[in-house]
């Protein structure tokens, strides 16, 4: 479904002509284009054109999804989950947690499809009353996690900006140094009595030496300033309740080293010659030679010869035994039958 083909149900024509039109969706799940929304609220009447339920301007959100029903559901879900925010740790068994989740889904379903809404709302209110404190606690916990995340993000940003700053500083320093060096050169040329060329030469050497020193100095001073996470007295800065510290990796016992033992195959027959010696034993004289295409594909006569020989030898020692399921049951049944008949 292309977004351009969507029509506003109210003014119908305007959407076609204006692909940049944005559809807004309201609390009852129906879509209206922006201009129609403004129209309705300019007039002061607040009724959805399709289902006639009362609307408020605030309840109109820009549609994120193509299907307005989805948007409606997403909205309801956000609202409900603000209330029903229990987590797995709050339940003693997995089964209870699953039951709780199913309940939540039922509620959302009922609200989205307007099934039994009075009962559902009652249920929500009941739940709210019973679980107010747990909900509050969870909300706080969530906000704490968010704070921690934000702090991490901030620290990263600070690091990056510091790096940028240090680079800028280093450049400025360089420029200053160069400027100084040039002025020095000019001063020397003006005021000293030594030979001009030698002054220039010594100056060039000095700048070369300086240039070498620059990167070293930059490396030393360029490392970003690490934000101290502790006060000098040892107390940690900021709320750090769940520092992620991994458990130490359990030490693995020294297992015996892997030792390859070739698989032994029981042919239940005389052992056929190994594939490598088939040529020497002149088996290939009696088998169809591989033509060029077959050989190019990797086929050699040894393969089919070996297979034929293996199949021929395998099973020659076989002694008949009963492996079939009914054979075993049949003997039992037969004795029964003979008794009854």
């Amino acid at each position, binding site marked *: 479904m292309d977004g351009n083909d969507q029509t506003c149900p109210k003014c119908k024509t305007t959407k076609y002509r204006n692909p940049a039109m944005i559809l807004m969706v309201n609390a009852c799940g129906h879509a209206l284009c922006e201009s129609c929304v403004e129209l309705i609220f300019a007039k002061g009447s607040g009724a959805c054109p399709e289902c006639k339920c009362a609307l408020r301007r605030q309840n109109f959100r820009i549609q994120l999804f193509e299907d307005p029903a989805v948007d409606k559901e997403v909205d309801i879900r956000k609202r409900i989950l603000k209330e029903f925010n229990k987590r797995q740790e709050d339940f003693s068994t997995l089964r209870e947690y699953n039951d709780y989740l199913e309940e939540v889904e039922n509620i959302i379903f009922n609200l989205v499809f307007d099934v039994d809404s009075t009962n559902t709302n009652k249920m929500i209110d009941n739940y709210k009353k019973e679980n107010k404190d747990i909900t509050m606690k969870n909300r706080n916990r969530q906000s704490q996690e968010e704070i921690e995340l934000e702090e991490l993000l901030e620290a990263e940003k600070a690091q990056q900006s510091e790096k940028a700053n240090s680079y800028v500083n280093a450049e400025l320093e360089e420029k200053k140094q160069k400027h100084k060096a040039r002025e020095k050169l000019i001063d020397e040329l003006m005021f000293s009595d030594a030979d001009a060329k030698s002054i220039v030469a010594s100056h060039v050497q000095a700048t070369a030496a300086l240039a070498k020193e620059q990167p070293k100095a930059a490396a030393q001073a360029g490392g970003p300033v690490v934000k101290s996470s502790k006060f000098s007295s040892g107390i940690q800065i900021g709320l750090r309740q769940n520092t992620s510290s991994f458990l130490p990796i359990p030490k693995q016992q020294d297992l015996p080293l892997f030792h390859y033992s070739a698989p032994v195959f029981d042919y239940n027959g005389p052992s056929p010659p190994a594939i490598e010696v088939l040529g020497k034993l002149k088996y290939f004289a009696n088998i169809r030679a591989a033509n060029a295409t077959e050989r190019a594909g990797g086929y050699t006569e040894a393969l089919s010869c070996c297979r034929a020989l293996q199949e*021929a030898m*395998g*099973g*020659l*020692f*076989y002694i008949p035994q*009963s492996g079939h399921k009914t054979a075993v049951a049949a003997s039992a049944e037969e004795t029964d039958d003979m008794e009854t008949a």
Partner: protein
Amino acid sequence: MFATSTQRSFWMFKDENDVSNARLSANIKYISSRGRNMTAEERELHFLNVTEEKILIMSYEYQLRDFCRKFLPPMPRYVIGTALHYLKRFYVNNSVMDYPPKEILVTCVYLACKVEEFNVSMDQFVGNLKGDREKAASIILNNELLLMQQLDYQLTVHNPFRPLEGLMIDMKTRFPTFSDPERLRSGIDEFLEQVFYTDAILIYSPSQISLAAIIHSASTSKENVDEYITKILFSEDQKRLLNLIEAVKKIRVMVRNVQTPHRDVIKALEKKLQLCCNPDNNSESPAFKKRMKQSFDDEESFEDGQYPDANTDQVRSMLMGMSEMGKI
């Protein structure tokens, strides 16, 4: 490898009695479920007994062979071998009266073509059949899963043809005193054809069968390959030699006792089969068609996750009761 295959682990029997017992139990199961209200003599008259079933199966095996021989594109022998294996295995576990052999026959061939990688499309396949092609196609497809289920989904079959080639190669290489084993080929092929009508394939390993074929063919042309066997094959394991000799002897005896069933006998048995066969599985009967239609209609009214489990059984028992009343 045969030694590690499911064929060896699950589809082998100890001897002919074992096989007959299995068939007997399938037969008894069917008779007791269908002829509950009859006396012993009535049952004897109405239903087929084990020997009659055996004769019928043999006639169907011949039919399968003929069908495969006329098949276009020409069918290699290992496909025929696999199809015969499937047919045999199916009717070891089930009674002939329970599932119509004609349908199972074509399904066996179709499945064997797939398993042995002999590519035949459904259209090509039913082109070789006489009669209504669409109906045949639907019969085959309906029975395919049933067949696989009765085979326990163990579809790899080891036929005696590759061991035969191996033994030929070995003989030519290690036993040069016997000139040109190819002379034995026609005798071997004949023997192998006959062995598929016996139960030997369910008792002995395929390499033993192919060795029996070589020995048989050699003895008919008054040759002797015993030296090959004793000196070269079994040079290290003399005790197993006795076991093998025993096995080969038994196989040859079984092949010798193969009797093509007489056409009149077959006709009479077929008539009897028509009367006592299970109408639910016979696609000709009106009861079957009604059941199929009913199961189709029922499927549409299922709600999610609420498939009735005893529905078809109820229908079947209802229909069985009706058909019993209609017969007598």
